[in-house]
Every structure is written in structure tokens, then in C-alpha cells.
């Protein structure tokens, strides 16, 4: 019997396959299906700092628009007694999910500032979440902001959130740091219990007919995995926080690579969007088959088996490997040159 169980954020998971934060997780029926199909845990969709504020401001703006101006229409809407503004709907969702599921439920909070909104971290904990994923999605575009300031703000935010809650906190972030390794280390010091590598930043596309910038979301592919493998392999066993991979997990091979690089869990969204939630079951079956074929007993056994410390050529993860790859490119004969 092959043991797929793993540990993540102090939780015991029956499988390393975890549904990452996405709109799939907004729907309770989907969450139940994920559990049914063998997910080790679910990360709920994110509660966005901007969304909470924007919803409040939008409601305020349209309730105020045109009001108290003209004698016949001093308002345009009934003054309802209660709006479930802010995080209430989200917290209710956590509660419902906790009631409906046996697998761990991880809340997700998305924001960049250390403002009052981080108290929602505690509210997520109070609502029953088993752990919290803090998704720091910040694209610095100002010419004035320096790298150090950004790094500090990440650490400040992690510290502030950690101070709010007792449940473990994972930090999900992007790869764009001058020194990713140092950044990971600083987040370790700031108290992160796990790092989720990496966020995929939306990249705008152009519509040349309308001359508009079109927000474009493409699903990840297995190609996206390599950046993650690289960093997980490098950081694995070097820092205290656990590591999770998100982005690029599409096949059983991808899952196995992630675990071998050192990830506690691998997270999926694109694959589920592409193939449906049931795909999770196929993936697990394929992983088990592969492990069986290659006589692996457990996930624990293979975890980190190919991280930087465990491979024969650690340099493969470093600059030397870069040179090797380039060399291999130039050595490919091209007909046009003949």
C-alpha cells in the first residue's frame, strides 16, 4: 500500500494534492467534489483587501449618488437594515466549508498593506479555518520604490498577520526578488510557516483591433513548473518554513517532480479548470502507479530526494548549469549556417 500522506502547516494531509486558491473554491459543491476526488486539503479563494474596500466604497457611492438633491427623489434605494459587507460572506463560506468537509480548509487573504484589514486574518481563524495562506500580490510599478522597501513591507505584513492569529500562516508570493533566497530567509525570520511558490502575475495583452489593453489570463502549463522546481530544490531544507508548489502542476510527473524537489504539497487550479475536478482522481492514480512501478513506498520517502543537497551535482541548480544549457544550444547545428 503506497502512502500518499503528507504534512503541511502542522496538518496531516492524506495526499499532497491540494486545490489552490481560485474561484473553483467559491462553490461549496466544488469543495465537496474536491474532497471526494481525493484532495489533501483546499485553499479557499482569496479575500482581497481591495475587494473589501471597493465593495464598501461602491455601495456607498451608489447609495449617495443623486441623493438629497431633488425634492421628489431624495434617495433612489431603500435603506436596507443590513448589508453583509466586508468579509462576512467569506467567513460564512469558511464555516460552511468546515461543516461540509473532513479535509483541512485553508483560508486565503490577499493584500499588500498592513492596514486595519489584516484583522480579517483573525476573523478567518475564528470562522474555523485550519490555516491561513497570505497571498502577497504586489506589482511595484513606481519609479520611486526601492527593492528594500518592498522586501520590508512583505516582512512587516507577515509579522503583523502572525501577531493576529494562532493558526499556521503560509505566504504565497511571486519570484521577482533580486535575492529570492534571502527573501525566503527573511520571511522565515518574519514567522512564515510555509512558502507557496509562486504566484503567477497576470500579464496584460493587447487587442490591436480596439487598441485596448486586454486583461488576459492563460492557464499554466507544465512549462511553468521549472521555475518552481528550481527554487524549491534550492530552498528545501535550507529554511525552516515548509514549501508548497503552485503553478505548473498538470501531470503525475509534475507532482512527483515537485515532491522530489522538496515540496510538502503541490497545488492545482489550471489542471482542474482544463480537465474538471475529477482529474484530481486520475492524477493520484497515476502518481500511485508510477510509485508502485518504481517501488516507492511513500511520499515522505521521496520528498526532497532531488533537492540541492540531495542531487549529485548541486551546481546544476546554479550558474554552472546556465552555462551548460547555453552551450548545448549553440552546439545544435543549424542548416542555414551550413
Amino acid at each position, binding site marked *: 500500500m503506497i502512502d500518499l500522506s503528507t504534512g503541511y502547516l502542522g496538518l496531516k494531509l492524506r495526499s499532497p494534492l491540494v486545490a489552490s486558491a481560485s474561484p473553483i473554491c467559491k462553490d461549496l459543491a466544488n469543495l465537496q467534489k474536491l474532497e471526494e476526488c481525493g484532495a489533501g486539503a483546499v485553499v479557499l479563494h482569496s479575500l482581497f483587501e481591495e475587494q473589501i474596500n471597493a465593495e464598501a466604497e461602491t*455601495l456607498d457611492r*451608489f447609495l449617495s449618488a*443623486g441623493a*438629497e438633491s431633488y*425634492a421628489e427623489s431624495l434617495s433612489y*434605494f*431603500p435603506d436596507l437594515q443590513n448589508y453583509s*459587507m466586508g468579509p462576512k460572506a467569506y467567513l460564512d463560506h469558511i464555516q460552511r466549508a468546515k461543516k461540509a468537509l473532513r479535509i483541512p480548509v485553508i483560508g486565503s487573504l490577499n493584500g499588500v498593506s498592513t492596514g486595519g484589514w489584516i484583522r480579517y486574518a483573525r476573523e478567518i481563524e475564528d470562522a474555523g479555518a485550519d490555516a491561513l495562506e497570505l497571498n502577497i500580490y504586489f506589482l511595484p510599478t513606481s519609479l520611486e520604490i526601492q527593492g528594500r522597501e518592498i522586501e520590508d513591507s512583505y516582512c512587516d505584513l507577515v509579522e503583523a498577520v502572525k501577531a493576529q492569529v494562532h493558526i499556521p500562516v503560509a505566504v504565497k508570493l511571486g519570484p521577482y526578488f533580486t535575492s529570492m533566497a534571502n527573501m525566503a530567509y527573511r520571511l522565515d525570520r518574519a514567522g512564515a510557516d510555509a512558502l507557496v511558490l509562486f504566484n503567477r502575475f497576470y500579464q496584460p495583452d493587447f487587442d490591436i483591433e480596439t*487598441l485596448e489593453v486586454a486583461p488576459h489570463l492563460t492557464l499554466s502549463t507544465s512549462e511553468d513548473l521549472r521555475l518552481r522546481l528550481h527554487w524549491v530544490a534550492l530552498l528545501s531544507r535550507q529554511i525552516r518554513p515548509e514549501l508548497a508548489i503552485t503553478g505548473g502542476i498538470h501531470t503525475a510527473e509534475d507532482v512527483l517532480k515537485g515532491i522530489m524537489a522538496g515540496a510538502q504539497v503541490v497545488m492545482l487550479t489550471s489542471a482542474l479548470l482544463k480537465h474538471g475536478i475529477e482529474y484530481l482522481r486520475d492524477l493520484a492514480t497515476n502518481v500511485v502507479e508510477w510509485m508502485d512501478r518504481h517501488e516507492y513506498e511513500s511520499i515522505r520517502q521521496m520528498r526532497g530526494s532531488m533537492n540541492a543537497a540531495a542531487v549529485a551535482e548541486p551546481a546544476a541548480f546554479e550558474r554552472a548549469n546556465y552555462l551548460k544549457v547555453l552551450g548545448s544550444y549553440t552546439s545544435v547545428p543549424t542548416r542555414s549556417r551550413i
Partner: protein
Amino acid sequence: MKRPQVTIDGNEAAAYVAHRLSEVIAIYPITPSSAMGEWSDQWSAAGQANVWGSVPTVVEMQSEGGAAGTVHGALQGGSLTTTFTSSQGLLLMIPNMYKIAGELTPVVFHVAARALAAQGLSIFGDHQDVMAVRQTGFAMLSSHSVQSVMDMALIAHAATLESRLPFVHFFDGFRTSHEVAKVEQLSNEDLRAMISDDLVRAHRARSLNPDRPVLRGTAQNPDVYFQARETVNPFYDACPETVQRVMDRFAALTGRHYRLFDYFGAPDAERVVVLMGSGVLAAEECAEALMARGEKVGVVNVHLFRPFSAAAFVDVLPKTVRAIAVLDRTKEPGSPGEPLYQDVVVALQEAGNFAAPPRVVGGRYGLASKEFTPAMAQSVFAELAAVAPRNHFMVGINDDVSHRSLAYDPAFSTEDPDTVRAVFYGLGADGTVGANKNSIKIIGEDTDNYAQGYFVYDSKKSGAMTISHLRFGRNPIRASYLIERASFVACHQFSFLERIDVLKVAEPGATFLLNSPFNAVEVWDHLPRSAQQQILEKRLRVFVIDAYRVAKENGMGGRINTVMQTCFFALSGALPREDAIAAIKHAIAKTYGKRGEAVVQKNYAAVDNALAHMELVQIPKEANSSFDRQASVSDRAPEFVQRVLGTIMAGDGDQLPVSAMPVDGTYPTGTAKWEKRNLAQEIPVWEEEICIQCGKCVMVCPHAVIRAKVCEPAAFRDAPVGFKTAIARWKERANMRYVLQVAPEDCTGCGLCIEVCPAKSKSEAKKKAINMAPQAPIREQERRNWDFFLSLPQTDRATVAMHTVKDVQLLEPLFEFPGACSGCGETPYIKMLTQLFGDRAVIANATGCSSIYGGNLPTTPYTVNAAGRGPAWSNSLFEDNAEFGLGIRVSLDKQAGYAGELLRRFAPRIGEALTGEILAADQLTEAGIQEQRRRVAELDQRLTDLNDPEMRDLAAITGALVRKSVWLVGGDGWAYDIGYGGLDHVFASGRNVKILVLDTEVYSNTGGQMSKSTPRAAVAKFAAGGKPGAKKDLGMMAMTYGTVYVAHVAFGANDTQTVKAFLEAEAYDGPALIIAYSHCIAHGYDLVHGLDQQKAAVQSAYWPLFRYNPALAAGGKNPFQLDSRPPALPLEKYIYNEGRYTMLVHSAPETAAMLLTEAQKDVNLRWKLYEHWASLSYSNGGAQS
């Protein structure tokens, strides 16, 4: 018992009692009573119970007539029932009122009394409506203040059960219904103590019940009707005593003692004024001041007007009285005197026991909320002192026609010097009124002070000015009139100083707070000279704050309300500063807390940062400005516009004498152009290089401020420097030049034109063919350009391809600069109507938004072309617009027919050729119409030349020989609800009328109440829990006739289809209905996205585009053509862009989800049905082939 002190308005006070004492509430919105129904609906939606622990059922009906019928039925069903209404609404209830009274049924109608539509409509307060029901058999109880509204509401509910007579409880619209005042709130125990459960059970026992059946509503014959009508007399005889008994019981409970007639004044008064409603308070203030001078005067406050107790009235009059003036807030033209006057005369005649009977005179005051002040009351008392006081006078206006008005001394004031009197000039959008309502609540509820707030609004919906009048102090406040001497004046918009005299109201030594972009040092030089002079003469203390900056810095955008409110509290000293700030924050949390933390926090920040930015201005020794306030109207305007309308524009309409007003309510059109409002901070600027001349911006502009012309190059010879043109992109207009011009001072800055513009710069994508730019720097240049543009020749209509949007832009709009909301979704349709047919259109306009921006004085957007032709427009009522329009059509047809008859009769003398051509004319094209006009002009000339007395009739109606287009315009409240019966009849009539339904899916004008057009899942007033039922398919209903042209259009989704529909509708010789999607401020999103929402509505198939043309069926073709594609967008992607839907997601997520599912089903099924219909074969009479 200690009762809570609450600060509420009269409507809430009445609704508070009515909701707690009712089981069924039938409502229909009408200003100024709508809020009573809205409160009831909200309370019931939130599960608030009546005093018996049960939540009242609130039903909205299709009209007040419907509400009255429902009330009647609910009463027959044994429920305690109530309703709320005003004005025309009450008139529609009259038939049922006779029934309810004739059957001795206890009920209370709460009425915010309002003027009636006569020479013009008015939403404001007087007693014309209630006086029109005094004969129905209802008892009538009058309140004069917010406290008395709450008290009398309870007394009415108790007395109706005890007397079995139904009651109208009324109070003055706006002055009392909308005045915010501190009152003692009655408790549920008070209400229970006053209502006898035995009488409630007796009411139920009289209900219709098959277990103990009875028959009511018989037809009675000459033998017994009379006797049966007289059976009720004992109930009327007993009623006054019953009411007094209830009042006495109320007094024992609360300590407030009312009598049927309350007397205030000297016990030995010789002169007494009798009146009812809020005017009583001004009269009492005056009497008190006169008594202090030793004058023997008094005031009778009439509470129980019907049944009128002559004995009780005579009883309260001092025996010393020698002269009585009875003031009626109504007018009955042709009567020997107004109703209250007549009652008093009769009462004295019948019950008077005076040795020397007092002389009685009657007068009118206060129609349509005309101010009634102590100064006016003083003139009445003074008149009574005359040897022969004038009778049938009026007070408050200058009647220079029939010379019946009393002059009064405006300097006479009874304002309490210990009361703080604050006046605030704000902009609708800046939140001033909302903050002032909060201030009054704070002062009323957090201090021992008495407090009162009253708010005056604009006649325009965009860029509206508001004036708040706040009084507070240690002494009770009776003043039922606007503040004339303010101890504090705040001007929240610097630009107001240029337009109006904001300091006129300031008393010497007053404080003036100004929101100014200039600091304390700079500001003086930017004040108009007259403002400087007043500051010096009155020794005003002046403070400035750049509130816009503070608001912006704290995320408040243009909402400066909390900033200004904080300054007001700091300066007025109503509370210690720290307490005031705490109280403001408490009020913010209460008002905005449920909208979310972010909103509360930014308001807090604005409060915290306000005072540091407020500065005291050191006043120089003398005025130095070389400029002053601007004239409200250009001196190029016609005389009537300058003299009359200009005076109204300047805010001085109260000063106009009777002679200034047209005798029959008839006004010139073409006047909006004289009202330069300069509302927009930014206006569109044309880039002629980028423009593709598609005309879309011209089409979508709700305010007709973007215009296009194509002219010969020579026409631009004298163009001002900087006037832009481009080569015209029309094959048939080669070598001509195109110009797109913006009216800089009329634009509201809504931005719809920019949104719709499809052309973009090839080197800088964000730059379109029109782009917004600050108005101020280009105002002068663009004003010159606009004037020049207007002087350019208009394209000959006969050469315009009317079915193309590109060509429609070249047609002159005869509807311009309406005061509608900025970005309005209705007005583009009306503008287009006038472009296509305006020079021969007659418009019947149902009451609603379109009648308000169409016809609210001072100006109208309807205008004329160079030939003086343009739409003739009239608003009859709300409910009758279809019938009204039909009448116009029938009449025009009759006139045309008669003209034809005469033409035939006189043809030999006039000339057979001309008359034959006229009678056979084809007027289906623009060229045909122009030709007919030419012939008719020739006919007129011949008739003049012939000068035959027999032909005078013909000469008077030759104009009828040119084809006219009759349009019935209104909103969904009219077409789907109150006017539907008439509209349906018009469909069936087959007459050639065109119906334009501006469908905003709510009663927009009265503030967004549900209509039968409101879609499922949307929140609206009276549908606070989301509308559970689907929108009525009015188009489908009309199409079932098979003889009605029907089009469903949305100009933002398909402008060409819209134009086609208008042309086809007009061309169809029969009734035609256009249902036009109109985005609206009541949909809850920024209207700059209105066109995107129209597109989404069509893409989701929520709003399918179609045309049903019966003319096609005649040719064997399917008359039903679908013009939009199958659903390509889930409904939620459309609806959840709008607040009216997302509100429900926030307030009741489960209901929202359920209703969304249902609404999506509605869309799917409707689409399938339409698709199927569009695919049917009509050939061979529809027989199966």
C-alpha cells in the same frame, strides 16, 4: 413615563404610528408622501411588527385608485388598514372614499397635503388636495408640526375605531412632512393604551365572512336611497365629542393636550386669525410678539376640520372678538369664499352668540409651499384692525392684477435671538443635506437643545443647489418658515458667490464659513464686490477651508459634507468641540457603518483633518473687487425670458407679481439655452484629425451639447480663430467641411460621448476623437466657437439619409440642455425624436422625470428651429397620458379632415390645381412634407388675397393640412402601471399615435419605487427584499393585437436599430410603441458606463432587440424581426454590474442566488419564444404548407 426624544421628519412620524397600528398597508408613490410608504415597506421587510406582534402586509398598487380599492377591500376583509398619499393621488381615491365612509368603515388615510395640477403642476404643500375630499364623509384631522403629526396620527387611529368614521389625517407637504424636528416618541404601550381591542374586534366582526354572510354595496332606488343616506347622521353628530374624548385620553397619557380647536392668544382678543396646518405656528409667533406690544390678538388652530363642530369653534373664541380673518391654504375659483372661511361664517351664523357678531374676512396664503411668515400674519392682524378690513384677500404675493394682496413688512421678525439659525448652501452631490440631517439629529439627541432642519431643493436634477435651514437652541422652536436672518451662513461651493446672494440672509455679526480654493490671505480678492460690502457692513466673521482638498486627501472625492459639518460644529459651539467630534463620528458610524468599514474610516479621517485646515480671514478695511455677481440671463434673451424666467433663475421668483405670470399656464419654448449653468469641470474637446465623423457622440449626448454640421467651405470665412473643421467624409457632400462643436456652458460633463467614441489616435491609443479637458481655460474660446457654430446653416433635411446614425447627426435637435441627471439614459431618445420629427411633433408627456426635465420652470429644453417650428408639448397628468395623447390625435385628424372638407368646398374659388395637390399630397418623406408646407403657404397667401369672410374658418386651420406626428411620452410607471388601462385602449384604437416608453424599470422621478417593469432580483423601494416576480412583457402584450407597431430598443447596444425603429414607428399608420432601455441613476452605477450596460443587457438577451411591424404581415412576411443575437453573456455578468442587484447579494445572498436562477430562466425562455416567433412563416396566411 420617560419617552425617547427622536429627531425625525413628519412622514416618519406618521408612518411610525400607522405601521404599528395596521395590518394591511396599500401604497402608491407620490411626492411628498412617498416616504411614508417607503418606511412601512422597509419596516415590514425587516420584520418589524405592529403593536399586536404581527408584521403588517404592505402592497404596492398600480395607482392611488388601486390603493384605495385595496384599502376598501382589506377593510371589508376585517384588517386594520391604512394608506398614504398626496395631491392627485388623493383625488384618485375619491370614489372609494365615498364608499368607505358610506359604509362607516374605520380607517386612516395619512396625507402629506399638496397642491393640485391646474395651470401647472406643483409638488409642494398646500390644502387643495384635502379640501377636494372634504365632501366624501371622511373625518379630517389636521396637524401643524412634526410632534403633532405623531400625536394626531394616534388620535386619528383611535378615533376612527370609536366613531366608525374614516379619517383623513393631514399635514403640510414638505413644510411638515419633510421638516426634521426633535419630538417625543410615543411608545408601543402608548399606542396600545389608546386603541381598544374590543373596537378592533368589532371591526373584524363587521367583515365579509361566508360563515356569517352579509351583503354590502346594494343598488338602491328612489324609494329608499335618500333615507339610507341619512342614517349616518348620528355618527357625524357624535364624532367631534368622540375625538375630543380621545384627545383628552391622549393628554392624560402624554401631557400634550389638544382640542378640536386650539386657541392661542389674549383671553380678551379682539382680532383673531383662524387657520390650520403649519401656518398656525407662524401666526402664533406673530400673535405672541403683538401681544407683547399690548395688542389683543389670538389664533385658532383648527384640528378637526370635518365634521366641523360649530359649537366647539364658537366656544374657543374669546367673547371679546370683533374681527376674524380665516386663512385658507387653498383656492376655489368662483366660490364665494374658501372652505374654512365658509365654515366659520356658517358656524358664527348658526352657533354664534355674540352681542355684536364679529366681522369675518377670508384670505388665501401659502399655495404650493409659498412662505407664510410672522410678517405676513402681522399684515393680516393689521388688516383686521382696519375699519373695513378687506375680504377675499391674499397674503404672501404681490397681486398687481386684481389688487387683492395685503402688503407686509419684511422687516417684521419674531426670530428668537437665543436660537442659532444656520443656513447652508450646498451642491446636491456634495452631501450637504445628509450631513445637516445628521447634525440636527446630533443636536437633537445628544444635547438638551431643541432642533429643527428644513431643506430647500432645486428644480434641476443635475448640478442641483440645496439650501439647508437649521435652527437649534434652548427654547422650543415653532418657526414654520425659512430662516430669513441667519446667525451662521455656510457656502459649500465657491462658485455660488458668482451666481446668488448667499450673504443676504446673514444677520449683522453672523459667522460665514466658505469652502474656498483660496486661503485666508488670498480669498478676499476673489470675492464679488457685493459680498465684500456685505461682509464689511454686517461685520461678518469669515472662515475659509479648502474642503475639496481635505476631502480628496482623505479619499472622500467630492463629498465635502463631513469636513464642512465638523467646521460648523466647531464654529457654532452647539457642543464642546471634543464632544461634537465624538458625536459626528458616532453619527458617521450609524449612517455609514453598514456600508463597510472603509467608508467609515475615510469619513473619520475627513473629520480629524478638517479643523486644521480652517482659517479665520482678516477682513480688510474696504471692498476692492472690480467684479460682481453675474446676471442670470444674457441681455440677448427675449424680454419675457429676461424679465420673468431670468428672475426665477436668479432665485427671486417670489418677487414676481401676478401680472408677470401667463394667465393660462402657457410658456414659450426654446428657453433652456438661456440658462448657462456651467456645471462641468471638464468638457469634451474635438480632435478633428482623429474623428471619423460617425455621429455616435452626437447621438448619445443626453444634453444635446455635442452638435455636428456640414457646410460649404465659404461658410467658415468668418470663423473665430481656433475654430476647427475637417473635410467632410460623405461621398455626396464632397468638398464640404465637417464641424463637431460642444456647447461649453451647457455640458454636464457626463462623459458618455467619450465612452462611445470609436476612433483612436494611431500614435497614442488613449487619445480619442473627443477627449475631456478642463472647462475653465477654454470656456471663452469655446463660447465664441459655439455662437459661430449656431450661425452656420443647417443641412437641408430633404437631403439627409434619416436611417443612418451618421446622417442623423446633421439634423437639428429641438430638445437641448435638459436639467436631467448628468448622463441620463432617457433624454437621448427624446432628442432623437425631435431631430427626426420635432418640427411637426406634438408631445403628450406623462408626469415623471421626462415631464420634469421637460417642463419644470423656469426653462424648457424643447426648442424651435430657424423657421420657428418645434415640438408643441403638454403634460396633463400621470395616469391619463395615453388618453390625453389620443385626444390630441383625434382632434388634429378632425381639424385636418375639416380643412379638407373646406378646401374641397372652396376649390373652385381658390384654384382646383392647388387644392387638388394639397389634398393628394404624399407626405411620407421629408421632401413631401416640405412641398406640402410650400403649398399651404401658397394657400394662405391666396386666402389672404381673396379675403372672403366665408373662408375665414379655413384660413384658421390650414396648418392642419401638413402631416403631424403625435407622441405619447412617459416612463414605465405610466405605461406599465398607472396608465396601462388607457394605453391598452389606445393600442386597440388603431389611431395613428406614437408611444415612447422610457423604461428605467422603476418610478425614477419619485425615487426608485418598484413598477411592473422592475426586473426580477432587483432591489427597489417597495421591493426592499428584491422583486420576486418577473418584469411584465409590455411589448408582447401590445403585439398580441397584431395591429400595433412595437419596437424594443437600446441605443447603446444598437443605435442604427433604434433609428430604424423610430422611423418605422412614425411611418406606420396606426399605434406604434417603442420601449426604450433607459439607464438610470436608480440602477446604482456610474452612468458613464450606461452604454456598456445597454450592450450587456442585449448580449445577455435580458433586453432583446426586436421590431414588430404589422405592415409586413400584410405582405405575407413575418412581422416579428429579432435584431439581436442569442444570449452570449450569463445574466449575472450584466446585472451584477449594477447596485440595484448587488444590494440584494449583500443583504440577502440566498434570495439573490435563487432570484438570479429564476431571472436567468426568464431570459432563456423568453429568448426561445422570441426566436421561435421570428422563425414562423406568415406566407399563405400562416397555413401549414
